[in-house]
């Protein structure tokens, strides 16, 4: 393997050998440095072309029930970030625990897949829900599920002590045809489409059956 091939492997984080000599050469030889910049440029062109391609845009008409891996990946990141945002009084910050949680989500296979799939609309939806200012529970004002109480300051949050969940209802371009959920540990994100084009999003440390029950109670 010559030095340029080693450099290509280094660029991909696939050079599993002592590379002190390559590092030395990289800093001394302009041609190698230029080669590395070339690799970076190729990556950028390929990735940007992918994001702007007509195929990519067409793919954003989400077929969520067919591509579950990407949903799982987006949900993994969402659950990690969302729980920190809503249920950690300190909010999201560089504390060790939240950093590790996020690292786990990002480093997961699902996280890697998410970067390479076309699930932009779903990710948008989840991130929008994560911003508490966007939350809407107006589908049924005054509604509170049995056994839960509503947070007075943040009406989208419901709790019965140990269990908490967030509820959000919106008109959505996420083309779900049936309910779908993703679970990470005790945490769940559950999306439920309604016949009038809305998506009900429930997430919290509840079971899928509980989320479904909550949605049915809301719809009534």
């Amino acid at each position: 393997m010559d030095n340029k091939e080693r450099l290509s492997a280094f660029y991909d984080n696939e050079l599993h050998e002592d590379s002190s000599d390559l590092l030395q050469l990289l800093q001394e030889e302009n041609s190698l440095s230029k080669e590395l910049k070339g690799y970076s440029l190729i990556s950028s062109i390929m990735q940007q072309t992918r994001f702007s391609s007509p195929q990519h845009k067409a793919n954003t008409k989400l077929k969520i029930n067919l591509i579950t891996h990407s949903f799982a990946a987006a949900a993994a990141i969402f659950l990690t970030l969302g729980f920190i945002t809503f249920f950690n009084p300190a909010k999201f910050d560089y504390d060790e625990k939240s950093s590790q949680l996020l690292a786990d989500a990002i480093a997961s296979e699902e996280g890697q897949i998410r970067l390479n799939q076309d699930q932009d609309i779903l990710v948008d939806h989840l991130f929008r829900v994560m911003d508490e200012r966007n939350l809407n529970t107006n589908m049924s004002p005054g509604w509170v599920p049995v056994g839960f109480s509503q947070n007075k300051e943040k009406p989208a949050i419901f709790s019965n002590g140990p269990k908490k969940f967030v509820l959000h209802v919106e008109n959505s371009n996420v083309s779900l045809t049936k309910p779908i959920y993703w679970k990470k540990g005790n945490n769940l994100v559950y999306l439920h489409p309604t016949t009038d084009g809305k998506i009900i999003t429930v997430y919290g440390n509840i079971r899928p059956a509980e989320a479904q029950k909550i949605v049915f109670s809301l719809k009534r």
Partner: protein
Amino acid sequence: MHKPMEQYKDMDAQLIDEFGRGNEAAFDILFTKYNNKLYASLLAFTKSKELAEDLTQQTFIRVWKKIETFRGESSLFTWMYRIAINLAKNEFNSKETRKQVLTDVIEDNHEIASSISSPESMAIEKESMDAVISFISSMQSDLKEAISLREFDGKSYEEIAQITSSPVGTVRSRIFRAREEILKFMKEEEIYG
């Protein structure tokens, strides 16, 4: 034969050490290696080229300042990506203050910011990017497959080896040869070099 992991530091770790000793060229190498990957990730999140570019720069400013806190518990890219995602999330939560924050950050860090360039492809015209993609489409199928699985799908060499039923060494070689051919084309077309 690979040496056992304990016997060497990977190149990223060596670069971090060198940067810690004041060798700023080491940071340039890390920047070259990761800036477009971070930019692409941020573009996927923000859907805005301008914002992704701003956040990429902010991420590297943070990395520049905080790299001594990197403890090697995750890959360097994961650590950088965590910073980038945190910045992007803050962006989602405070859009109205974004411009001011960005201005403040960049002004406060003018010296650092001036040494961190935008993703290079920003300077390349769309026609040239299309020409590169068209060239890649015309490449020998095994090279095209390897570079596409790597760059479009983010597959590891091991995964590509499994998908293509080829040894990892062959995958590494194909990806390298694909890059060489693309760079040669870009030089001939005066797109790069």
